[in-house]
């Protein structure tokens, strides 16, 4: 029985004001509606409303065949498109029991880590923009242009790339692309120090974010928070190290966690800094990949022409820039899949906003939602 979501079950008190932040709003990172009950500037209650970007991805996936689903996965978390692809093709390959050539694995990791840097740059820029500093937004996007140029070179599209295929990739990386990636890394590493000097240790920025929106660790686990928010709350948990998939176990990199340097462990500043430190780690991983990448094929020759995995079901998860992206795939042996459920990290992370925003100011609510780094495409699918 559908319930009218506009009904307020408690009595309306006259001192409180109910405001809508969104769906059209500069800070809600997409079409999100937050119904905020405020008493002056202090937030009493937040009710998030989503579904404005629902495009029925899971229903479509049952009709287009296994390979046809890959472009749809791009459009879920459009800022880290390749990482979504990676999760899906790994799921189907696990069900098929398919081995992927070495070179394809290395290229997959390079592109996924570049996608991670690109996504974190957007998170950094838009978060700073929410808090009033416009310059980091333009700087972040300026550096991201180089990554998008690299994506365009390898698959033709800048944002929704559709580069991965079941069994490997859709094309190879030429040596000049590898050189370009190396040049980008050399250009980008000093920029991270620039960003730190501009924003991360700025007194006003710290005042706005430190101690705000603290997520205690037990609450994070219970709510299923993953990704940078979980690491910021102190848990050293990263699927690339703790449940290594693809070839991540061959690389040396650290997992940055929040230590409460400027406020409490698990506040907005920690979540922001974990992303900045992760960008440096991604650069390390890409450098190691470029040093180790072998020659070979980019797609497995054993890939079947018609993808028809055997009857069964599997749950595979990968480390998206925003958290743990899980694909639960049920196959019944036919060319179209039976059921695909996407466990979206932002969908799970957003649910914690009402719990941590009681009693904060309106400006803090903007900081909290920004620090969780949500993308509505992934939440609504």
């Amino acid at each position, binding site marked *: 029985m559908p319930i009218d979501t506009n009904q307020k079950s408690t009595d309306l008190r006259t001192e409180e004001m109910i405001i809508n932040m969104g769906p059209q709003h500069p800070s809600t990172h997409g079409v999100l509606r937050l119904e905020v009950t405020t008493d002056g500037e202090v937030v009493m209650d937040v009710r998030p409303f989503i579904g404005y970007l629902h495009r029925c991805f899971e229903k479509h996936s049952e009709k287009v065949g296994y390979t046809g689903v890959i472009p749809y996965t791009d459009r879920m978390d459009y800022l880290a498109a390749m990482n979504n692809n990676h999760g899906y093709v790994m799921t189907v390959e696990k069900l098929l029991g398919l081995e992927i050539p070495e070179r394809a694995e290395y290229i997959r990791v390079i592109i996924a880590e570049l996608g991670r840097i690109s996504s974190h740059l957007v998170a950094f820029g838009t978060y700073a923009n929410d808090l009033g500093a416009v310059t980091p937004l333009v700087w972040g996007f300026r550096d991201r242009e180089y990554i998008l140029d690299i994506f365009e070179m390898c698959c033709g599209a800048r944002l929704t790339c559709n580069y991965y295929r079941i069994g490997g990739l859709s094309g190879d990386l030429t040596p000049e692309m590898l050189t370009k990636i190396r040049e980008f890394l050399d250009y980008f590493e000093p920029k991270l120090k620039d960003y730190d000097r501009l924003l991360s240790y700025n007194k006003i920025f710290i005042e706005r974010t430190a101690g705000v929106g603290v997520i205690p660790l037990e609450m994070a686990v219970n709510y299923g928070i993953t990704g940078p928010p979980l690491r910021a709350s102190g848990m050293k948990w990263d699927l690339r190290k703790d449940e290594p998939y693809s070839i991540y176990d061959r690389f040396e990199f650290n997992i940055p966690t929040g230590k409460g340097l400027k406020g409490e462990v698990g506040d907005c500043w920690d979540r922001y800094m974990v992303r900045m430190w992760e960008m440096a780690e991604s650069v390390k991983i890409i450098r190691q990949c470029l040093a180790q990448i072998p020659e070979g094929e980019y797609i497995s020759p054993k890939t079947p022409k018609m993808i028809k995995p*055997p009857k069964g*079901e599997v749950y595979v998860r990968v480390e998206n820039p925003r958290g743990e992206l899980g694909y639960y795939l049920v196959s019944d042996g036919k060319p179209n899949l039976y059921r695909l459920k996407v466990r979206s990290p932002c969908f799970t992370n957003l649910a914690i906003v009402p719990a941590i925003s009681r009693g904060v100011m309106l400006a803090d609510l903007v900081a909290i939602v920004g620090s969780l780094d949500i993308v509505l495409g992934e939440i609504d699918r």
Partner: protein
Amino acid sequence: MDLEAIAGKLNARFPEVVKSVETAHAGDPFLVIDPGRILDVAKFLRDDPEMSFEWLMCLSGVDYPPESIAVVYNLYSQTHGRRLTLKALLDRNDPRIFSVESVWRMADWHERECYDMFGVVFDGHPDLRRILLPFDWEGHPLRKDYVYPESYRGVTNKP
């Protein structure tokens, strides 16, 4: 501890709660459990030190016409590093199951999505309403026999 052992422990604690252990297919094996006692099973799985499945990774619905709709729970234990998949099969004409939101708060929004897409009613859920579709939408889209509506609030899909 493998799947058979977990099933044995569950059956020892809650008699006959595990209806079957499915391993014959490709991919992950799962346990089919009795939906009536899901809340007790969930609490046991989370709190018992030998089980300690602190993480509910994913909660989804799967439609198996004509008899049942399944609710699938993917659990993960960080202390022991093992996974568990539970499937509860519900009657397709009146799918009701108790909510595990009080055990893992993550289930809150995922159960709302399952209700939205499949029509599964979760008893004891604090705020069961549609999450992805508008509040006055009729029908549950991810069911296999879903008929696309001709119009919604006066907007038709005919040219």
